[in-house]
């Protein structure tokens, strides 16, 4: 499955990129599994995901939980808790 992953704010800086298109193994089918898979890739994803507290995720531009499923072509985003307003 191919997905586009976007990174914002501190996660973007720690990951050293704002987006990437990734071909995922068959068993990576949820947000939580993608998060674990990215961390397992090592630096810089491991640092990005472990040094920033409470990283949130969105799928198709809606807030998502670890169990949210991923679909072919999905847009997935990871970011710190929001601080607008």
């Amino acid at each position, binding site marked *: 499955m191919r997905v586009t992953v*976007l990174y*914002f*704010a*501190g996660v973007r800086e720690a990951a050293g990129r704002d987006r990437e298109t990734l071909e995922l193994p068959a068993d990576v089918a949820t947000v939580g599994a993608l998060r674990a898979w990215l961390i397992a890739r090592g630096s810089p994803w491991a640092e990005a995901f472990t040094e920033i507290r*409470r990283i949130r995720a*969105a799928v198709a*531009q*809606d*807030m998502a939980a670890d169990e949210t499923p991923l679909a072919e072509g999905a847009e997935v*985003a990871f*970011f*710190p*808790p*929001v*601080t*607008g*307003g």
Partner: protein
Amino acid sequence: MPVRIQREDFDAGAQIARLRAGDPRIGAVASFVGVARDRNDGAAVSTLTLEHYPGMTEKSIEAIINEAKSRWAVFEILVIHRIGELKPLDQIVLVVATSSHRGDAFAACEFVMDYLKTEAPFWKKESTPAGERWVDARESDEAARSRWERSG
């Protein structure tokens, strides 16, 4: 458009005038303006840089506006949020709600602001004498939002 994300400043008076123009049903207009402070978490702040997630930002605020409209008898809700580099004294965000009576307008305006603070994908980075830092999310903002949650 009820949601506008822009770099430019806004004129709250002109926005309110436009929102209620020609609608004699309106008896109340509540508005909120968020402004950049010169201090945060014990440090002087010289610049605030606002990043957002284009697309999701508009979608999430539209959803918040629709939820507010379903809860209170409001006619229109407008949200303008600035992005990019801001300085202390600059305006950041405007929320306006119109209704027949003040109770609905006040509640809808506060609800939209509380949800925007915790749900809309914006992030602030501030420049301080010690360098740049990302602003931490506040527990008090979560608490402000959670009081609107309905049980069942």
